[in-house]
Structures are given as structure tokens and as C-alpha cells.
């Protein structure tokens, strides 16, 4: 591999990681995290569809308001 391609490869990985972190910060990775969790802790069991997951995910906050400060 040439030096330039190593560099672009590193940059690409860096960018991909940063984007992933950003999406996780925004809350967008919630479903992926749920799937990972099911795969690791309850392999083979059925999982919720994406739409159903999001519905429950947001509705859960109806009964769990988080304190935020001033």
C-alpha cells in the first residue's frame, strides 16, 4: 500500500468513527444499539421492527421524564 492510500484509509476510518459518535450523540443509533444488545444477550429471539422500536423508545419517556438543569 502506498503512503497516500494509507493516509486516506486512516482519514476515512477516523471520519467514519466521528460520524458514528455524532449519530450516537444525537440518539439516532438507538435501534442499532437495541439490535446489538439483543444479539449479544438474547441471541435467536425475535426482535421488534424498526418502526415499533422507535415508537416504544420515544413513548418510554412519557413515564420517565429526565431532569435537565437550567
Amino acid at each position: 500500500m502506498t503512503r497516500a492510500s494509507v493516509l486516506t484509509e486512516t482519514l476515512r476510518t477516523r471520519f467514519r468513527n466521528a460520524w458514528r459518535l455524532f449519530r450516537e450523540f444525537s440518539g439516532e443509533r438507538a435501534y442499532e444499539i437495541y439490535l446489538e444488545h439483543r444479539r449479544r444477550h438474547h441471541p435467536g429471539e425475535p426482535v421488534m421492527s424498526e418502526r415499533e422500536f422507535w415508537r416504544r423508545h420515544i413513548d418510554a419517556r412519557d413515564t420517565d421524564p429526565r431532569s435537565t438543569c437550567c
Partner: protein
Amino acid sequence: MLGAIAWAIIALIRGEEVSAAWLVFAAVASYAIAYRFYARFIAYRVLKVDDTRATPAERLDNGVDYHPTDRRVLFGHHFAAIAGAGPLVGPVLAAQMGYLPGTIWIIVGVIFAGAVQDMVVLFFSMRRSGRSLGQMAREEIGPVGGAAALIAVLAIMIILLAVLALVVVNALKGSPWGTFSIAMTIPIALFMGFYLRYLRPGRVVETSVIGVALLLLAIVGGGWVAESGLADTFTLSGEALVVSLVIYGFVASVLPVWMLLAPRDYLSAFMKVGVVVLLAVSILLAWPTLQTEAFTDFAFNGQGPVFAGSLFPFVFIIIACGALSGFHALVSSGTTPKMIMKESQVRVIGYGGMLTESFVAVMALVAACIIDPGLYFAMNMPGTVLGDTLESASAAVAQIGFTITPDQLAEAARAVEEETLVGRSGGAPTLAVGISYILSDIFGGDAFQAFWYHFAIMFEALFILTTVDAGTRVGRFMLQDTVGNVWKKAGDVSWKPGIYVSSAIIVGAWGYFLWAGVRDPLGGINQLFPLFGIANQLLAAIALAVCTTLLIKSGRAKWAWVTLVPLAWDAVVTLTASWQKVFSSDPAVGFFAQREQFQNALEAGKTSLGTAKTPEQMEQVVFNTTVDGVLAALFAILVVVILVDAARVWIKALRSGGTLPTHEDPYVESKLWAPSGLIATAEERRIMKERETKEHEAAGAPS
């Protein structure tokens, strides 16, 4: 090194022009030193964080609230949860005493008190599966301390919501541009809510980007509306805004979260991080000069028009968020401990997160101190003192020793395209003017000053409305939970009548203070903000008392000074402030002295006194000061109750040989590994690589 130079420059350049950037440098350098040494000392020597021990996120991982989260993401979430309008408002009000008292307290306070509290609470809550502060107070101190903590939390919540809502009202009254922009955030949030629910579930980034774009459009649109025939529709009086806010607060707290609250949260989080970065970069680029003196006379004579009382204790009360904020203990013992991956990360998330908020507070102080002091006081003195015209305002400012001509006042208002800036107290407009100077210096020049002003108003109001939504809801849950202990049905959080009644009670409570604040002849924010500060520091006293108790009970009495010293300081400040608010014979400071003054005047048949122009207004003052005085006394009593109850436990622990059983979760060995700091060290990166290759081999082995 840079920090020492920056501090030296601040100390030496007296009477000359000081660049605001030195304040920022001094802050950042001090933070770096404190984080490197003091936070490390607390984490490893005092708390003894143990990375071989599984955190609740690992042990109880359920993919929902307990979930090991990347430290960088969690840092962002924690920061977004603790920082809002608070660190932006307090420093602005404290600027009446000059830039130095505020700066020193923000920096020293955060290093030795605020950040310590956040980190230690986070640590102890993490060792208890993420128990809340109230639960910890009950379990570790006793039922009395626990009950006092619960009352304190509810009381502070209500005062907090009223004060924040008052800030919004003062920023928006008589401003069609601002009112339109803020009003538009409601349909924007609703649109985002429906979009996320029905059109594109889960596309949070996409939805937020659309939302932010619409928000910017709403700010620009506000400028058009202000010049069109619609301007009158959006020009609202303070009272009308109070009514709208109360209705909004009620509706928002009973609507399902997905419609309004969730999308608003996404928007605020994006704006928060974006604006903080934007502001930091701009201050460094614009290098603005401070216009305020290091200390004004008000620091010593206690006659300041923005809030009365002398430097001690009131600077330490007015600046809560950014230096020491008890409210953070609720976040540090809420969601964050359930998501932390490694014990050592409490340092970066608890201590580091608070340092970041403190940095925001320093920037707010800078923004307030680059404004001409004459304009600052014209904006922040009570409206009744300033009178109705620019001339009277100019005269009122001259009265306290500063100068600004009516023409300058008119010009300042024109620059941000507002009818007037006189009497726009509450901190938000002052900050917005400061921010508009800084940002228009870098982006767009004078032509953009009005845009940046309204941009700043918008993002502050956005935070505040998000807090009003969420706070009313949290308050409602606490109320339902409390009543639920006695009457089970009321505790059911999905029982509609229960929801409506408890929401109405909470909204009514903060609505009352808001209404009284808007109509207060003495200027509501001046009266209410100290009360809010006292309540917040009271909560800090509870949090620090719980921490100290736990340090002593777990046999670490020799390290207890780490939280005991800030606790002692905080108790002295809070109690002195409450004492003065209750017993001071100076009517400008003491609520009851003020009450008596007005009561006597009424009985003597006078029809006006000071800024209260009618007997009705005077009666109003009598009533308001009674309520405020009783609250100040109540807060002080709560602090004393908790401290006495905690001290009882300390003595008991020390007598029984230095330890008492605590409710700490048993040790479970951790299988996870993660770096401690925000950026992984070379050593950590090596371990990370090794573990990855090992995992790879393990996964590849069976085949």
C-alpha cells in the same frame, strides 16, 4: 504557564483596557490544571475508582436505560443535560459588580465545589445502580433528611421554572421579532415530532437538520414580521406572555412526549453544542475589550440596582450554574450513572462536564462585560426606576454614576431592530446584545447585528422552553409520586385526571410566581433571582451533605474535607443570604423589612412609595415580600434540618469505629474495557488494539 500569565495580566492591567480573551485563557488554563491534578487526586485517592468493577450499565444492561455508552457520547449527553440558560443568566446579572468577582467565583467555585459535587454524586450514584439523590439521602442519612430533600427539590423546581419563564417574558415583551420566532418553534417541533413518528422513524439527524434550518428561517422571518402589518399581532405585553406561557406549559406537560418534548430536546441539544463552540471561537477571533471595571462600587456598598446585597454572599448566590449548582446532582444521580462504562470515567464526565459548563458561564460573563456599562444598567434596572422615556432612563443611569445619552440608547435599540432596550432585565437580552457584538464582528458585520441578537434570544428561549416543558413534567411526576404514597390512584402516571390535576398544580405554582414577578413594582427578576440562587445552593448543600456522609460512613473520614469544605462554604453562603433576606433591616435586601416599610406607608395613608405608584401596587409588594420572605426562611430551615441530620450520622459513624454499613452494590467483576479520558492515551490505544486482535482470534478460532 499560560494560565499564570493570563491571571497576571488580569491582575496587573488595572484601569487599562483588558481583553476578554485573557479571562478565557485564565479559565481554560486553571481548568486544565485542576483536571490534571485535583480531579485525578479525588478519583484515585479519595473515591478509589476501580475499573475492574462492573458499572451498573454493564451489570444491568437492558438496552434501554442501563446501557454501556461511549464516554464521548455520554459526555455530550451529560453536558447537554446540565447546561442550559442558567449559566448564561447568572453571570450577566453578577456583572453589575464588575467582571472580577464573577470570574473568580466561577473558576474557583467550579474547581473546588461544583465539579467536585458533580463527580462525587455521580460516583456514589453509580455505586448504587443509579439511585437518585432523594433516595440516597433517605437511605444514607435517614427519613428526615430524605423528606427535606424531596421538599427542597420540588420547591427549587417551581422557583426555577418561574425565574426562567420570567427571563423569557422579559426578553419577548414588546418584541414582535422575538415573539414570532419563539412562537414558530412550536409548529416546528410539532412538525418534527410527526415527521419522526410517521414519515421517517429513527432519522434523528435528518429531522434535526431540517428543524435547525426551519429555526434559522423563523429568525429571519421574525425580521420580516416585525416590519409587516402582522407586527401588532406579535407585540405582546408581559401579562399576555405569562398567560400564553402558562397555557403552553400545561399543554406541553400533558401531551405525549413524541409530539413536542422529544423533538424540542433534539433541537436544543444541537443548538447548545453548536452555539457554545461558535461563541468560544468568536471570542478568540474577535478579541473584544472589557468595558466594565474589575469591581464596581456595588460590589462593596450592596446598593446594586440589578440585585441588592453585597458581594458576600450574593455573588455566590446569583452565580449558581457555572460555579456550583445543586441541580446537577439530579442529573448526576439520574440517567448518567446508568450509562457510564468504566468507573474512572466519572472524572471526565462529572468533573469535565461541569468544567465545560463553567466555561460557558465565563463566556456569558465576557459577553455581558464587553457592553458599555451605561447600556448594561439601562437594560437591567427595574423598569419602574427607569421610567417610560429614553430621557428618564438616561437620567436614572446617571443617578447611579454611569452615563448613556438618550441618543445612544435609541441607537443601541435600532442596531438590533428592537423598539427599545431600556428595562429589558432578566439577563437574556443583555447577553444577546453582547453576543451580537461578538458574532457580528466576525460574521456579517453591523448589518447582521439584529440577526445575531435575535439568534441569541432564540436559542436562550429555546433552552428555557425545553426546561419549562421537561421541568413541569418532572414536577408533576414528583407530585404524583408523593401523593401516590398516600393515595395509590394518584400515583398512577397514566391516569388522565391525575395527570391533569397535578400538571395544573405545578403550572399554577410557577405561574403564580411568574405573574407576580411580571407585575412586581420592584422588578420581579431582582426579587426572584436571589431566591432561585438560594434554592439551588440549598440543593447543593443536600448533595454535598450526602457525599460527605458517604465518605465518612465508608471509612474515608480523612478525605471528607474534599466535600466538607465546599459544603461548609455553601452552607455559610446560603444561610447568610437567607438570614439577610429574612432579617436584614435594609429594605432593599430584607424581604420583611421591605414588607414593613410598605405596610407602614399604607397604614400612614400614603398612596405611593418608591417605585410602587398606587396603593394596589403597594399592597402587592406587601404580599409578594411576605411570600418571598417565608420561602427564604423555609429554605434556610431545610438546610439546617439536613445538616443536623447528616451530622448525627457522621458522629454515629465516627463513634462506631469509623465505618457504618452503606447501601453500596456488591462487587462484580467487569469484562468490559474502555479508556478513561475523552481522548485515549497511547497506552490505552495499544490495549485497545490488543483486545481487538484477541477478539478477532477468538471469533475466528472455532471455524
